[in-house]
């Protein structure tokens, strides 16, 4: 019943685009580069839509337990290629893609938003020298991201994981001749390495304790225990024996914490969030696609993917929740005082992802994914709008030098307004539903949940505060600097803005219940939804959320519109606090003092002088000496004289013949030397 | 028969055939001189004997008694070896040539062929190809630039045209399915002239190629560049005199005869009559024995006449023309012929 969806094409098209643009891009004319760069993601987007259509028929009840269904494609739908990809004792990793509700949603986001941002980039990068290079990198990112999402086992996912890291590194350092950009790229790369280190350890632990890395098999381990059970693998139901028993809770917790470290690294959560703000050095569309919409949410996706592990490790879940809440709060506070428009958005991103982690932490994965979806829309919108502002002001990013852009950039203004209201969480815009779902899920999550809920509430106040601050500073009031020439924004940039605006208006109207129901097979049932739902309470909480969003708006209105001098006074009143915030809690300084400087010292003195120069150098010198000495002896052999070669050759052949003869033992076997077996074969 | 008888008979065969061959060579020379004379509207040799029939003997005696001078700078052993190689390579191939059907005579002793080899054709070609050495060594050993150039030329020419020659024969071999000359002849005997390879076997292209290549192989005009007097004063045998020169001379005509024999065997039905097996073999033993030889000789004679005719009429090629003709025209043509023949045989 499973018709082939050709999942392999989804990553492959962007990869082809990457190769074409990367190799020939510099020689191709600009339109050709554009065509290649656009067609690749468009193709994979259409394929994803096709997959969605194929699966939508009676999609919700597709799950391993409920047997055959009437859909053209039943989830989880898997394609395996060239398998076994890795076939070692104890390690079986097929090169297999799996498509289920979760990965479908994620794919829609990645390819859809990705495609929009590709379009946007045409206008934004039009005057850039590295046009082809930019598009090839963007396609490369799409390729790796789709691999990450489609991966059927942790190992393949890790491949995509590293790949998107690479793409992000390349794109952050796109303007590699700017020192900041290069350093930012390096920073992102290194910080991600720390996270990936955790991820790797997690993978090893998984392999050691489960003996498999395939998601479906891991899930199977948790199914109600019986010697033989049904497992869905490669899209067919097959019997599989339960091998080694379930590991202990401690081990599970350890695994989950390692995975969490990886997720935190990729998704810029405490303690590894420091790279994201610097990542804003890259081109704005990149910030929108990679560092807001898709890549940074990969951590959330990963946690949702491996939820079967987290479900059985409550401690780890608590940690996830705490990390998420803390990140959300701190990032929001920092966002309050940033003056670079993109940095404000970066911190907003961090805090929003904090929300998602919070959701995952309270086992409301579908809520987290829901927020991921909406966030992808409005945050991409925010970034793109900011991008068009920057584009219009010729690269100006400082909020204090903007202002009064409302009339000059009407489209940008209105879309930005929609985005701002969305972020702040006003109904009926998308973020309202998702954030509301998260807060509700947190609230009903035991007593500790109440605290998390409160933090989330405060954070949403801060959120609306800093977003409206941005809004007022950029668009309201009078121009604080004369911008000589406002470049007109091309249509290719405006169209994505409008589309994304529409999406972030109605993206949430699905409603968490149906969304959660749809995701249920792959992320488990959402407790807060369905039976346990408590409409009045939910309504009350919604009112509260909207209220404090409104408060945030009011404060911002007072501070940045009616009495612009007030913030300065406030900063003067609490210098310490202001400095603390302005310097982002000195986290970077702390890291550099605790980690970076000692590392440099050790590397320079201990590793550099002692290990490298003395030990390794000495050993190498010794080896080289031995080698050259024996070379000096042996080189007399290679006299270059043909006849001496012949002499040694004949000696060697004599030796070989003798040895064969002697090893052969008897003359009969010596005779065997002669019976060249192809002769034996052709006896007549 | 006993080994002794075998030896005696074989000896007899060899002696007879060799003598016939030598005489043939001598009189081919005469034939050429007379014919060319007629072509050029003059009498050929006519003084010695009736119609100059004894001319060859006179020539032989002359060249035998002439002073045999050997230049000082030559590489002596090779200089002496070269003409021997040439002549022997011209005389040996006849050993593989059948003049008539087997089994005539006491207990199926093969009178009409010195040795019946399975791959007789290949043997003839091989020995003919050895003839290059005679010329090459002659030119090289006589330490003279004209000789060297001539010998290099002729060696190159021989090698180039051997390809075309061999390929042109492949068609015939394919049709007969054997390299045994007698098998090939028998297969042409069935319907007389209609089943000769050159007609019935559709091998006329092959024959044309063979003809051209044969002219070149024997260094005959229009391909007689190695001894182009105008440029090379005599080519590889410039430094040779008297008997040694005569040996080269004989070698050339011997080769002509060999080539003629091969052509007869492969394309013109060998010793079989024009009607082939249509007419029953005569009862008279003598006629039965010598009719084949008659036919064979007639055919070879015609071929030799053709040789002389061509020499009398055609001018000499230029060297590059020669090479181009061999490589660019004959060789592809031969390949096409092979392909065509095999297709024809496959779909017949």
């Amino acid at each position, binding site marked *: 019943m499973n018709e082939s969806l050709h999942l392999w094409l989804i990553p492959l098209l962007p990869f082809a685009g990457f190769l074409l643009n990367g190799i020939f891009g510099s020689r191709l004319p600009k339109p050709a580069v554009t065509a290649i760069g656009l067609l690749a993601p468009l193709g994979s987007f259409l394929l994803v839509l096709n997959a969605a259509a194929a699966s939508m028929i009676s999609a919700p009840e597709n799950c391993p337990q409920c047997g055959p269904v009437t859909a053209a494609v039943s989830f989880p739908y898997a394609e395996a290629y060239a398998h076994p990809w890795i076939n070692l004792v104890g390690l079986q990793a097929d090169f297999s893609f799996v498509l289920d509700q979760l990965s479908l949603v994620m794919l829609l986001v990645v390819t859809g938003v990705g495609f929009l941002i590709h379009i946007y980039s045409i206008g934004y990068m039009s005057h850039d020298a590295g046009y082809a290079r930019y598009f090839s990198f963007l396609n490369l990112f799409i390729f790796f991201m789709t691999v990450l999402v489609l991966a059927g086992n942790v190992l393949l996912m890790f491949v995509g994981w590293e790949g998107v890291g690479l793409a992000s590194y390349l794109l952050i350092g796109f303007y590699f001749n700017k020192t900041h950009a290069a350093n930012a790229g390096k920073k992102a790369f290194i910080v991600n390495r720390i996270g990936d280190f955790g991820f790797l350890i997690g993978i090893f632990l998984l392999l050691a304790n489960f003996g498999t890395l395939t998601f479906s098999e891991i899930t199977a381990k948790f199914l109600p225990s019986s010697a033989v059970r049904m497992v869905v693998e490669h899209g067919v139901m097959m019997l599989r024996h339960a091998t080694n028993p379930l590991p202990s809770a401690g081990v599970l917790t350890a695994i989950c914490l390692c995975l969490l470290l990886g997720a935190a690294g990729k998704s810029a959560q405490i303690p590894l969030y420091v790279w994201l703000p610097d990542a804003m050095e890259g081109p704005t569309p990149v910030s929108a696609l990679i560092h807001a919409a898709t890549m940074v949410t990969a951590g959330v996706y990963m946690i949702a993917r491996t939820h079967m592990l987290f479900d059985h490790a409550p401690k780890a879940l608590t940690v996830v929740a705490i990390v998420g809440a803390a990140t959300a709060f701190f990032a929001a506070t920092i966002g309050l005082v940033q003056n670079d428009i993109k940095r404000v958005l970066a911190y907003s991103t961090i805090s929003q992802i904090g929300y998602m982690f919070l959701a995952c932490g309270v086992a409301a994965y579908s809520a987290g994914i829901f927020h991921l979806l909406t966030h992808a829309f409005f945050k991409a919108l925010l970034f793109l709008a900011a991008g068009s502002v920057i584009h219009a002001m010729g690269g100006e990013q400082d909020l204090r030098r903007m202002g009064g852009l409302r009339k000059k950039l009407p489209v940008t203004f209105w879309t930005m307004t929609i985005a701002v209201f969305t972020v702040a969480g006003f109904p009926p815009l998308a973020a309202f539903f998702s954030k509301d779902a998260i807060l509700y899920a947190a609230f009903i999550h035991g007593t500790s949940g109440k605290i998390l809920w409160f933090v989330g509430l405060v954070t949403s106040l801060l959120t609306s505060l800093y977003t409206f601050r941005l809004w007022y500073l950029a668009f309201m009031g009078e121009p604080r600097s004369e911008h000589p020439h406002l470049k007109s924004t091309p249509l290719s940039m405006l169209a994505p803005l409008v589309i994304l605006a529409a999406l972030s208006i109605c993206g949430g109207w699905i409603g968490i219940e149906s969304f959660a129901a749809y995701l249920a097979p792959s992320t488990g049932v959402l407790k807060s939804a369905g039976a346990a739902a408590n409409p009045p309470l939910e309504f009350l909480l919604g009112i509260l959320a909207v209220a404090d969003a409104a408060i945030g708006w009011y404060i911002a209105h007072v501070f940045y519109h009616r009495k612009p001098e007030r913030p300065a006074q406030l900063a003067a009143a609490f210098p310490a606090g202001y400095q603390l915030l302005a310097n982002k809690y000195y986290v970077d300084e702390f890291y550099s003092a605790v980690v970076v400087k000692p590392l440099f010292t050790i590397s320079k003195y201990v590793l550099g002088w002692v290990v490298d120069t003395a030990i390794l150098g000495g050993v190498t010198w010794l080896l080289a000496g031995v080698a050259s000495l024996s070379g000096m002896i042996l080189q007399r052999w290679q*006299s270059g*004289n043909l*006849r*001496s070669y*012949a*002499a*040694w050759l*004949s*000696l060697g*052949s*004599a030796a070989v*013949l*003798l040895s064969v*003869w002697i090893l052969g033992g008897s*003359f*009969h076997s*010596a*005779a065997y*030397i*002669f019976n060249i077996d192809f002769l034996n074969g*052709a006896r*007549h | 028969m006993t*080994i002794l008888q*075998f030896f005696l008979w074989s000896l007899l065969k060899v002696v007879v055939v060799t003598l016939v061959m030598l005489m043939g060579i001598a009189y081919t020379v005469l034939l050429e001189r007379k014919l060319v004379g007629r072509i050029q509207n003059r009498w050929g040799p006519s003084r010695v004997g009736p119609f100059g029939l004894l001319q060859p003997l006179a020539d032989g005696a002359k060249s035998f008694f002439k002073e045999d001078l050997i230049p000082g700078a030559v590489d002596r*052993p*090779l200089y002496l*070896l070269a003409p021997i190689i040439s002549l022997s390579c011209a005389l040996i191939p006849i050993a593989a040539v059948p003049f008539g*059907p087997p*089994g005539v005579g006491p207990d199926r*002793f*093969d009178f009409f062929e010195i*040795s*019946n*080899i*399975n*791959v007789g054709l*290949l*043997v003839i*070609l*091989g*020995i003919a*190809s*050895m003839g*290059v*050495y005679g010329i*090459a*060594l002659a030119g*090289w050993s006589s330490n003279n630039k004209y000789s*060297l150039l001539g*010998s*290099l030329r002729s*060696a190159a020419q021989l*090698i180039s045209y*051997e390809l075309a020659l061999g390929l042109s024969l492949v068609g015939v071999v394919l049709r007969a399915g*054997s*390299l*045994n000359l*007698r*098998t090939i002849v*028998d297969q042409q005997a069935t319907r007389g002239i209609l089943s000769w390879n050159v007609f019935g076997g559709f091998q006329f292209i092959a024959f044309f190629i063979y003809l051209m290549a044969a002219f070149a192989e024997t260094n005959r005009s229009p391909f007689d560049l190695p001894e182009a007097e105008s440029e090379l004063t005599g080519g590889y045998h410039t430094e040779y005199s008297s008997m040694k020169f005569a040996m080269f001379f004989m070698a050339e005509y011997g080769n002509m005869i060999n080539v003629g024999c091969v052509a007869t065997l492969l394309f013109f039905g060998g010793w079989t009559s024009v009607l082939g097996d249509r007419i029953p073999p005569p009862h008279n033993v003598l006629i039965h024995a010598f009719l084949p030889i008659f036919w064979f000789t007639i055919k070879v004679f015609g071929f030799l006449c053709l040789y002389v005719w061509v020499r009398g009429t055609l001018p000499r090629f230029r060297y590059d023309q020669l090479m181009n003709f061999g490589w660019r025209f004959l060789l592809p043509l031969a390949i096409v012929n092979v392909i065509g023949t095999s297709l024809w045989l496959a779909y017949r």
Partner: protein
Amino acid sequence: MPRSSYNREGIFPGKSMQLILFFVFAGFCLAGAVNLLLQTHPINSALSLIVVMTSLAVLYLLLGAEFLAAAQIIVYAGAVMVLFTFVVMLLNAGREERTLGSRAAARVGFPAVVALLAILATIILHTPGLDAVRLGRDLATATPAGDHSNLTLLSTVLFHELLLPFEVTSVLILIAILGAVALARPGHEEGTAAK
């Protein structure tokens, strides 16, 4: 008349003929090979090699491989060696001078060769089954195919079982031709020294 009546009986009847011919031509082979070593001028060596090859052809004939005998003469004696003599003439290579290039050749090589020969001889002489087979009486047994030429069998095997190797060899030869042309074309090789 049927082809089978043309079979190879009556070339050399009698076993002693085998022996005589073997000794004669084996003698030629060895003499030629030794002469190849003794001669100082390459052209003489080439000629003696030709002697070796032609007499080898006769030995092939004795061993019932008449096609190979012919091929030996045509390919080796007729083509390859002509090439050699050509090159000798072309380069006008003189007598080789007695240079002392390597002591290893003398001190290692000759013992090695002697050892090799000794081992081979012992193995050959002590291997059963080799003396069992003897070339004898009528050569018909010599040809694996039996009554008429083994050419048919040869070509059958060559063009059915071993077709691919055959084609590959043709490609090889083509490449060799190209390589030869590319190498021998004057003017493009480094430092064109004394001509």
